């Protein structure tokens, strides 16, 4: 059956174009007001030093245009983009991923300026990731540069890239939940209240945070803009602002605190033989099913995601609430060039639908497109640590993909013992037998194996 073209709800900000989907393809429909930009984009796509920063894009021919069944297809031009495997948002990225996205954005902007083009905005949502590689997706942000113009996206760049990085790097505060709550990023005014006097000695913090905040407060009305009359920003000054930021962001490192799970893969409860049992089970399973897209819940630094990849799976999306572990996983994926996308995610409070009409940025459940799920040493973090009924935990995990692996951790295991040390054992129905019953109520158990002396058991299931 022919499907109909659907317009992306989050692409409303630019009146000159809309993003739309049809049969697994992504299109950007450009209206007459955007035709000039359309031609410019076609031109910059020919420049190699720019095109390597951009999502793979082609203009579609008349035949394909007809297939889209647009009402007024004489009056539109259409690009077709390569589809991103899994859409992620900056509040789900760990420090180094956001840092790489920021540098990608700045370097693209510098290369554009050198070719007499520029960007009209600087939103971190305009960057997506193909695993470890950042890619700029919002091509309609590209426009012609006219001599002397200002950097319109400056404030936006600061809020959605620079400020979160500074917050984590200088103050050790994680930006993710704050960013998610604000949508636009970290407000410059709020950040400057937190920064200390000594931070002013960094030129880039002084200029892009303190001074920006001072001018923002002082000049609020658009009438104030008459100050800028006859003033221009010379191109080499513009480039200097950008290169200063590149150098500054490159030097930023996350301020580290001890993490709960950051050391997990080196310091967990398995001995060598037990670990081998677990490895064998997982590796056999994935060698059999060869999944295209695996969801790894509680992926930590990606040890088992890597095992899944080595066992014939094409790509893995890993989720974990420990930002240090996720950051380490990202650096590993980058270093070893893995098809692995580790993201920040708190299962008891997942990314939800946010933004305009609650449709602008999609929640986790709206983005499900996995063909298998792996939940290793994970269910007890919900059932015991968060008091979520075991039945709901099993139902939820099995709803995420048609098949997968779940590890059951018994109550006598040392991790659970430490969880119930303070609150006491209030979980009389938490046992292997009940877990197995609940799992077979929602799915078919295809294999099981006890892998540790404490009784940790792996199940594979199918629906």
């Amino acid at each position: 059956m022919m499907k109909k073209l659907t317009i992306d709800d989050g692409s409303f900000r630019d009146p000159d174009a809309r993003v739309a989907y049809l049969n697994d393809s992504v299109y950007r429909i450009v209206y007459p007001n955007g035709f000039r930009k359309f031609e410019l984009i076609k031109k910059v796509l020919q420049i190699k030093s720019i095109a390597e920063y951009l999502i793979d894009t082609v203009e579609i021919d008349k035949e394909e245009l007809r297939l889209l069944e647009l009402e007024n297809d004489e009056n539109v031009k259409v690009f077709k983009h390569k589809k991103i495997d899994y859409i992620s948002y900056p509040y789900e990225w760990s420090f180094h991923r956001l840092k790489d996205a920021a540098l990608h954005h700045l370097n693209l902007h510098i290369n554009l300026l050198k070719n007499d083009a520029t960007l009209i905005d600087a939103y971190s949502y305009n960057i997506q990731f193909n695993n470890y590689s950042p890619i700029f997706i919002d091509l309609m942000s590209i426009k012609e540069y006219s001599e002397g113009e200002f950097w319109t996206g400056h404030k936006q760049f600061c809020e959605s890239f620079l400020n979160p990085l500074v917050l984590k790097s200088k103050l050790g505060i994680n930006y993710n939940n704050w960013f998610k709550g604000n949508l636009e990023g970290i407000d410059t005014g709020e950040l400057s209240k937190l920064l200390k006097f000594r931070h002013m000695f960094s030129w880039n913090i002084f200029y892009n945070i303190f001074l920006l905040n001072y001018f923002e407060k002082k000049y609020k009305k658009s009438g104030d803009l008459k100050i800028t009359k006859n003033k221009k920003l010379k191109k080499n000054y513009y480039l200097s602002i950008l290169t200063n930021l590149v150098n500054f962001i490159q030097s930023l490192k996350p301020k580290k605190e001890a993490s709960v799970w950051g050391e997990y893969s080196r310091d967990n409860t398995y001995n060598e033989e037990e670990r081998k049992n677990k490895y064998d089970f997982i590796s056999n399973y994935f060698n059999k099913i060869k999944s295209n897209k695996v969801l790894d819940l509680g992926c930590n630094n990606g040890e088992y995601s890597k095992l899944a990849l080595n066992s014939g799976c094409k790509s893995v999306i890993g989720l974990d609430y420990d930002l240090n572990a996720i950051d380490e996983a990202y650096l590993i994926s980058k270093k070893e060039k893995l098809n692995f996308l580790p993201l920040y995610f708190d299962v008891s409070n997942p990314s939800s639908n946010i933004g305009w009409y609650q449709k602008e940025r999609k929640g986790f459940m709206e983005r499900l497109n996995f063909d298998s799920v792996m939940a290793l040493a994970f269910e007890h973090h919900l059932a015991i640590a968060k008091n979520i009924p075991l039945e709901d935990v099993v139902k939820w995990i099995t709803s995420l993909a048609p098949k997968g692996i779940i590890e059951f951790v018994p109550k006598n295991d040392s991790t659970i013992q430490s969880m119930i040390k303070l609150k006491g054992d209030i979980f009389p129905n938490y046992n292997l037998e009940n877990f197995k019953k609940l799992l077979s109520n929602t799915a078919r158990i295809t294999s099981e194996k006890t892998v540790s002396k404490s009784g940790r058991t792996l199940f594979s299931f199918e629906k």
Partner: protein
Amino acid sequence: MKKTLIYLIFNTIAIFLIVTNAYAYLDPGTGSFILQAIIGFLAALSAGFLYYWTKVKNFFLKLFKKNNNDEKTDNR
């Protein structure tokens, strides 16, 4: 006087129109524009300064690193 006033008003409106038309779907931040207009040139100055500052810093860092590496080799 009247002429100047009309001129000023016209100019302000013109600037306002130019800015809103070009970037209608983004609030660029008035303060950010004024910051760039008034002291945008400082960025270029600081770039020059930062270039030499980084050179000096790297020189000392290298010295420091070298010492560190030596220590490590000794320990092994």
